[in-house]
């Protein structure tokens, strides 16, 4: 059994309620931080832990926190990003539903560190029942002196509010989230200025993912240095992975970042192998926007080493032969799945979610969707494949926010690794409506190139 830091007590009956959570050591980290440490000391522990943002970008949390501006007399805000919307990702939902006090404790410690007295949890609108759970937990925490004025007699004040979104993936982007929190359309802002300087209502603001903020609790419990001993290299600690698609045991798993992708997919502790005795064809390991990899490149890097569930190993080989850990939305495709169809659903998703500010994303996402729909419906042309490549290339990197990149990458990776499947669709339109391309050569052992002299 892998070591757990977030879910170590998740199995305890009633852990979502204050009394049980407290009886099992809950709010211990907050007590330690508020009563015996200065904000700078807490920040130091977070820096030492090597914690990286769990929302997808993997930016070091301690560093992000140290950027926050501290002008006199201006309030600072902590915003918890619970707008979990990346296809394949549903880990934060689990945390909020089953361990709400873990999140609240994390918010308390983080707010103390950053010097914020108001904290907002921005949760996607569709998770309509979760605000009730969170608000109940907030009320209980307040009743027991963990929120409100003069928390535990330390003189620190904190209020936490839950704000529901209303259906917009783009609001997971931190500046769009801030706009939405201000009651506006979720149009991302142009950076700079960064939220750390000018965020919510033009005040210094830190926006962090739910899992990131919850992880502060175990870091304080065991200490930053101890936390950094979990995992591998710069991928310290544990990570929540939400596994879905054609596997035996879809669900949310906490893994220590030292296991291999193969173990994660096939061991009974995690995904339990491919469903219905099928074979693995492809996988998108970090949420829909990261590059899809065929089975052979997923399990082994281009150098022939086993691929590990870490930020570095998954990214090994760059976009040519690697992918990203992203938000940990692990989507598995079996041999019966069609890459074209799968890519189409993602293109449709990003088209639906584009805010419409930047011309490349507004116009390009719809164009890609339509071309893919043609290929899927047997009306594609060979030139469409190159056209798709060209469109995604012209969107990538040319937009205000990363949604443009997120829309471009899945299309690029699908063509990069599965071009022959696209061509087969074009050449056999009839047949493609009746059957899928199948596993083809996508699980064949890789030819290992001699190490390139760099």
């Amino acid at each position: 059994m892998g070591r757990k830091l977030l879910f170590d007590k998740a199995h305890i009956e009633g852990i979502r309620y204050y009394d049980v959570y407290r009886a099992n050591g809950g709010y211990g980290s907050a007590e330690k931080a508020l009563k015996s440490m200065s904000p700078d000391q807490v920040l130091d522990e977070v820096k030492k832990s090597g914690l990286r943002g769990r929302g997808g970008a993997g930016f070091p949390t301690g560093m992000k926190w140290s950027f926050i501006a501290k002008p006199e007399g201006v309030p600072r805000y902590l915003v918890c990003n619970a707008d979990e919307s990346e296809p394949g990702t549903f880990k934060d939902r689990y945390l909020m539903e089953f361990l709400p006090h873990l999140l609240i404790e994390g918010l308390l410690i983080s707010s103390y560190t950053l010097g914020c007295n108001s904290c907002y949890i921005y949760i996607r609108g569709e998770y309509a029942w979760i605000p009730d759970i969170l608000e109940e937990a907030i009320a209980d925490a307040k009743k027991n002196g963990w929120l409100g004025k003069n928390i535990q007699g330390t003189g620190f004040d904190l209020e936490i509010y839950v704000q529901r979104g209303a259906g917009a993936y783009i609001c997971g982007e931190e500046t769009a989230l801030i706009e939405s929190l201000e009651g506006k359309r979720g149009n991302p802002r142009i950076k700079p200025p960064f939220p750390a300087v000018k965020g919510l209502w033009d005040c210094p603001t830190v926006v962090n993912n739910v899992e990131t903020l919850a992880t502060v609790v175990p870091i304080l419990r065991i200490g930053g240095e101890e936390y950094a001993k979990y995992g591998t290299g710069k991928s310290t600690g544990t990570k929540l992975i939400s596994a879905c698609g054609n596997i035996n045991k879809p669900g949310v798993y906490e893994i220590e970042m030292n296991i291999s992708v193969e173990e994660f997919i096939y061991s009974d502790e995690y995904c339990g192998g491919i469903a219905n005795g099928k074979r693995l064809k492809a996988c998108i390991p970090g949420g829909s926007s990261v590059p899809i990899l065929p089975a052979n490149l997923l399990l082994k890097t281009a150098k022939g080493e086993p691929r590990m569930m870490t930020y570095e190993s998954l990214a090994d080989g760059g976009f040519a032969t690697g992918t990203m850990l992203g938000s940990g939305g692990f989507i598995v495709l079996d041999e019966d799945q069609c890459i074209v169809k799968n890519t189409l659903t993602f293109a449709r998703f990003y088209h639906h979610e584009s805010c419409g500010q930047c011309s490349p994303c507004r116009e390009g996402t719809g164009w890609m969707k339509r071309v893919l729909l043609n290929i899927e419906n047997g009306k594609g042309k060979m030139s469409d494949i190159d056209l798709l490549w060209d469109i995604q290339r012209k969107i990538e990197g040319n937009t205000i926010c990363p949604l443009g990149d997120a829309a471009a990458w899945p299309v690029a990776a699908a063509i990069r690794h599965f071009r022959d499947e696209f061509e087969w669709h074009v050449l056999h339109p009839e047949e493609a409506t009746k059957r899928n391309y199948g596993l083809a050569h996508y699980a064949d052992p890789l030819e290992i190139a001699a190490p390139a002299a760099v």
Partner: protein
Amino acid sequence: MAEEKKLFKVKIDNISVEVEPGTTILNAARQIGGDIVPPAMCYYSKLKGSGGKCRTCLVKVSKGSDADPRPMPKLVASCRTTVMDGMEVANITSPEVLEARKGVVEFLLLNHPLDCPVCDQAGECHLQDLSYEHGADSTRYEFKRRTFDKVDIGDKIQLHMTRCILCYRCVFTADQLTEKREHGVLGRGEAAEIGTYIQQSLDNNFIGNVIDVCPVGALTDKTFRFKNRVWFLKPVDAHRECNDPKCCGKVALWMRGDEVFRVTARKDKYGEVEEWICDTCRFDKKEVKDWVIEGPRKIERQSVISQGHYVGVNKPKETLVEVLDGRQPKLLLDIHNISEVNKPNIDLSQINGPAHSDDFNK
């Protein structure tokens, strides 16, 4: 202690310029002028918060600053990126930038109708200029174009959303010039549109400025629609004493003969309004007697209009007879000998209005 403000040295396409801190790359380029100025479809220096959206002004920052010489990883919107001391920028010298700009133009034209021949903006349309410079000669888009019905937002302004490129300039204009904005961006992504939601007329004495800031023919002046092509008109600077204290009263009249066809604000060489004007001046003062004429206005940049003025061309001063050494031109063919269409006995100058076939069948 009035210390001299330190200026930042910036190099754009290898041309150096010194600008005040806080200047954007685009404005630094405008200080240099010429071909190295990035095109801008959504940025408008007079509108706070504008810019960053259309992505036509993308440039490459090959050196961040003297302090941190690393290049920026992505192309940046020059209209919203401020310069740093020692920054080096590549615009037209970067193939990467030109390629990206070509892509942006293609995206902007994807759903834009090819109706320039019937569009009032033709001749002074920034998208027309942009596609002439950076566009491809044909489209690769094989799907149905996005279309909208034309709507009148008030009795003087027509919104033709099909042509809109969502630059948001008109929204900023309403926000910043009027007390209460009544139109905005509705919908999301590709379905986003400018509108009032419930059809409403925009009532405000400065709302007409949205016509001037629109880079394309999406917002047009209903008092001028289809009246004339802009390049047939002569722009003339004029002013009047306007009662509205917010209106400068300084305009450009677009005339043909003694007739004032339209009134606009005066625009600089980047097509930006110099000073805002009110709707009374714009829509209701269409007589020469309403205005004090200052003199002809030079249009520097808009391609078609400036071509109409034959800038730098020496017109022949001699008459035809002088050129022919005193010989009279010879009548080679009398059209009336072979055609019965036009009758020489009908004096066109005696006919009221344009001639009609009935006039010749009498």
